[in-house]
C-alpha cells in the first residue's frame, strides 16, 4: 500500500515536471485548514493550482486525477519567515555564501536574484513540510545580537522551495527590507580592523561608555541615511532633475510604508529605539530576532507590530534568566497579544522550523498558535494571506500530506504540492541513504 502510494506520487511528480498537472482531487483525508476547525474525512479539490472546494464529499468531475489520502492529514505548507536558503551552501566556505554584502546600507540588493535553485538545501528543507521561505540577504537575525551585512542588508524575497529558476520560485521579490538595529556590543569589524583584533586578543576591553557611543554613532548613521533617502524621495516627487540613485530608489517603498521594514532588535533597549524610530519616521515595521523584550513587549503589542521570532532552540541570553526563557518567549508574546511567526534564520537547521515552533507548546503556547506561527501568521505578516497560509477556497494549493502532526518530529511528510503541482520529496540525503544502505 505504502509503496503503491509512493509510486503514484512519484508518477505525479514526473508529470508535474512535464508541466501538465496542477489539478487533482485529494480524498479521505483529515483536513487542517488552520484558519478554521479540523475537517475529518474530507476532500480537497484543486483546480489549476488553486483550492476550488473543501468538503466531506466532492464528486470527481471529468478526468481529474485522484489522490488517495486515507488515514493521512492535510496541512498548508509551512513558511519559514527568514532564512538564506539558496544563498548559502557550505557555511564555512565563503565562495558558496552570498549573504552579508560589504557596506552598511544596501537596500538595493535583492535576495531573490542570487537564489540557487539547484542548492542541495532546497529539497532537504522542503522534505519536512516547508513550502516557502523569506530569503534574507543578511546573515543577521539569529537573535544573538550579532550582525553582518551592514545595517540595511537588502530586500528579502518570498520564494517557493521549488522551481527551475529563481523566477519560477518567486512569490514576492521584495517582501521586506532587512535591517538591523545596532546593539551596544563589542565593535564590529572586518579582517583589518585593528580595534577588533585587539578586542579579539583580549588586549583591550571596550568600556560601556565607548560601546554606547559606538552604538549611538551607528544609530545616527541610520538617521542620516533615512533623511537623505527622504530628501531624494521629495525631490523626485517634486519632479526635480536628480540623478537616479539605486539605493534611495529602493528606499521609497519603505518610506511610503508600502514595504515592511524588518528590523532585527534583540533586547529591550534596541527594541525601544527601533519602535521610536519607526513611529517618528512613520514606517511599517516588523521586528525580528526578538529575544529579551522586557517591558517593551507591551509597547510592541500596543503598536500592533508583528514579530519574527528566531529559533526557540537557544540558551538564555543571560546566565540568571530562567532556564526556559527561550521556550516561554512565544507564549509571552501570545499572551501580550503580539502576532508572531517563526524563522529559522539559518540554512542548516531550516528544516527544523516546525520543531522550533513545537518547543514553545509545552511552555505555554497554545498548539493552534504554534501551527499558525509557521503558516497563516507568517502569510499575514508578509501580506500574502489572501493567497497562502491556510487551506481555504481560492487560495493557492501549497499543501502537505502527512501521517500526523507536522510539528512532531516522528511524523512523516508523505506528499507536497506547491501551487497544486506535486513536489519531489527526495533529496541528497535520501539518495545517499538509499545508496549506502544498499552497500554490500
Amino acid at each position, binding site marked *: 500500500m505504502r509503496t503503491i502510494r509512493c509510486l503514484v506520487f512519484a508518477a505525479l511528480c514526473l508529470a508535474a515536471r512535464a508541466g501538465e498537472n496542477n489539478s487533482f482531487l485529494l480524498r479521505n483525508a483529515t483536513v487542517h485548514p488552520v484558519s478554521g476547525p479540523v475537517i475529518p474525512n474530507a476532500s480537497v479539490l484543486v483546480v489549476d493550482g488553486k483550492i476550488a472546494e473543501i468538503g466531506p464529499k466532492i464528486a470527481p468531475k471529468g478526468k481529474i486525477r485522484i489522490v488517495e489520502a486515507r488515514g493521512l492529514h492535510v496541512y498548508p505548507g509551512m513558511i519559514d519567515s527568514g532564512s538564506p536558503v539558496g544563498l548559502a*551552501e*557550505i*557555511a*564555512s*566556505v565563503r565562495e558558496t555564501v552570498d549573504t552579508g554584502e560589504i557596506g552598511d546600507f544596501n537596500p538595493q540588493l535583492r535576495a531573490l536574484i542570487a537564489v540557487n535553485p539547484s542548492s*542541495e*538545501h532546497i529539497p532537504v528543507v522542503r522534505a519536512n513540510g516547508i513550502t516557502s521561505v523569506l530569503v534574507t540577504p543578511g546573515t543577521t537575525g539569529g537573535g544573538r545580537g550579532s550582525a553582518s551585512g551592514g545595517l540595511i542588508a537588502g530586500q528579502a524575497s518570498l520564494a517557493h522551495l521549488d522551481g527551475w529558476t529563481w523566477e519560477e520560485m518567486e512569490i514576492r521579490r521584495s517582501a521586506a527590507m532587512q535591517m538591523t538595529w545596532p546593539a551596544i556590543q563589542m565593535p564590529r569589524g572586518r579582517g*583589518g580592523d585593528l580595534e577588533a*583584533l585587539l578586542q579579539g586578543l583580549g588586549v583591550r576591553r571596550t568600556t560601556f561608555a565607548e560601546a554606547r557611543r559606538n552604538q549611538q554613532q551607528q544609530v545616527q548613521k541610520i538617521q542620516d541615511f533615512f533623511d537623505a533617502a527622504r530628501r531624494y524621495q521629495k525631490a523626485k516627487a517634486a519632479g526635480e532633475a536628480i540623478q537616479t540613485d539605486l539605493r534611495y530608489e529602493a528606499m521609497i517603498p519603505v518610506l511610503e510604508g508600502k514595504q515592511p521594514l524588518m528590523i532585527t532588535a534583540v533586547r529591550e533597549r534596541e527594541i525601544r529605539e527601533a519602535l521610536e524610530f519607526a513611529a517618528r519616521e512613520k514606517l511599517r515595521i516588523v521586528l525580528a530576532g526578538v529575544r529579551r523584550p522586557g517591558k517593551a513587549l507591551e509597547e510592541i503589542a500596543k503598536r500592533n507590530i508583528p514579530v519574527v521570532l528566531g529559533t526557540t*532552540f*537557544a*540558551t*538564555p541570553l543571560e*546566565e*540568571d534568566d*530562567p*532556564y*526556559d526563557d527561550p521556550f516561554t518567549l512565544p507564549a509571552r508574546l501570545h499572551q501580550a497579544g503580539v502576532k508572531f511567526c517563526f524563522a529559522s534564520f539559518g*540554512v*542548516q*537547521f531550516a*528544516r*527544523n522550523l516546525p*520543531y522550533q515552533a*513545537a*518547543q514553545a*507548546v*509545552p*511552555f505555554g503556547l497554545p498548539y493552534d498558535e504554534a501551527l499558525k506561527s509557521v503558516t497563516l501568521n507568517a502569510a499575514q505578516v508578509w501580506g500574502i494571506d489572501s493567497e497562502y497560509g491556510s487551506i481555504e477556497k481560492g487560495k493557492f494549493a501549497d499543501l502537505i500530506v502527512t501521517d500526523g502532526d507536522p*510539528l*512532531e*518530529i*516522528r*511524523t*512523516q511528510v508523505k506528499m507536497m504540492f506547491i501551487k497544486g503541482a506535486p513536489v519531489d520529496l527526495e533529496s*541528497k*540525503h*535520501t539518495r*545517499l*541513504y538509499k545508496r*549506502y*544502505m544498499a*552497500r554490500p
Partner: protein
Amino acid sequence: MRAAFFATVLLAPLAAQVTVIQNGTVHTVTRGTFKGSIVIRDGKIAEVGEKVMTPAGARVVDATGKHVIPGIIDAHTHIALDSINESSVSVSSMVNVAEMLNPESVSIYQALAGGVTVCNSMHGSANSIGGQNVVFKMRWGADARGLIFDKAKPSLKMALGENPKRQGSPQGLQIPGLQSPQNLRYPGTRLGVEDVIRDAFTRARAYQREWKDYEARKARGEKLLPPRRDLELEPLVEVLEGRRLIHAHCYRADEILMLIRVFDDFNIKGVTFQHVLEGYKVAKEIAERGHYASTFSDWWSYKVEAYDAIPYNAAIMHRKGVLVSLNSDDAGGAELMRRLNTEAAKVVKYGGLSEDEALAMITINPAKQLAIDPWVGSIETGKDADLVIYDKHPLSSYAKAEKVFIDGKQYFDRDEDMSRRPKFEAEKEGLHKKLLDQQKQAMPQNRRPS
C-alpha cells in the same frame, strides 16, 4: 565516640532515604517498557517492576500519566570547561580538561533541566591527539571534585580532518603579524594527521618497552635509574594497554577507515568515533572491529567535510551493527544537550528505528561507549538511580522534563524552579537598585569643575 555519633546521625537519614516513583510508564531501555514503579534506596535502584512494595515512610512521587527514563547521557560535550583546546602542539595528551572543570557553569543546570545526568566533557579537536577528557554527573551545587563520575574510565581525545589541519594550513586562521608560514604547525594535510598519530603511538610503544625493561631488570635485582617519565606518552601507553578509551573526532569515510587501520596495527579496541558524519559509508568496517559511533542527529553543510552528512547516518550505522549514540557537542550553554530526547526522535523519523532503539542512543549506548554501563544508562536493579520524569512521551516535541534524580537525589524539580523565580527576581532587582544607588552617590565626586 565522636565517630560513632556521626555515624548514627549520617545513617539515620540514609535509612529513611527511600523514594518510590509510582505508577508511571517506565522505559527501562534494556528491559522493556511497562506501567510500573521504581524503588530508590541509598541512591540506587532497589526495585523496578509493574508491582513493587512501597516501604513505610518512603517518599512517594506520583508518576501517573508520566514517563520515566534513565538519565540521559551525552557522550560528547565541552560544557563547564574554562578552557577547551591546547592547540599549540600536534599531540597534547599531557593536558586534562578535568583541571578546568567549572562547577558554577550554568550549563550544568540547563543540561540537568533537560534530563541529562551524565556527560563526557572533552578536550577540543585542534590536535591529531588531544587532551584528556572528564566524565561528570550534573550534581548541580557540588564542587568540581564532587561532580566527577569517578567510576568512568579515563579517556583521550583525538581528531582528524579539517580541524587538526587548520593550524597547518596557509589558508587557515591568519592573524597578520602573529602567524607566518614559518610557524605553521604540522600537520597541514590528512596525510600528516595519520603520520602524527602513527608516530605518537610508535613512540608510546618504545616508551612502554623502556619501562617494561626497567621493571624486569629491577625485579632481577639490578640497581639502575628509572626511565624519565614522559607525560605526553603515558596516556598513550594507557591506551595501548586498554586502560584508557579514545574518542576520535572525524568526518570523512576515508579518514575513519585510515584510523581504523592505525588502531588495527596497534591493537587498539573499543574506540568511539565522534561526529563520524560519513560513518554510514564505512559502517561495515566500524562494526567489524567493534568500534563505536557517537554522532549528530541532523547536522550538515557547516563545512566541506560535513557536506555528505545525512540524518540517516545513525540509522544506517545501527542497522549495520555499530553501537551508536547521539550527542550535542555543546560548549558554553547546554542548548542541544537539553533536548537530546527529541534529537533521539529523529532516528525514528530518519531511518525508521524503534522508539526503544532511539532512547538507547541517548542512554545505554553512550553509557557503553564511556564504559559506565555497569552503573548507569538503563533502569535496572542495582544501577545508580539516575532518572528523569517527563510529562509526556520523551520522544514527543511536547514533552518536558519535570523531575531529575541523580544517585537517588532530586536535583531538578520544575515546580520548585518556578516557585523560586519571584524570589530571585526580587533579589536581582534589589542588587540592581543598590548598584544604581552606589553609582549615584559616587557621581558628585567624579564630577570635575567645568
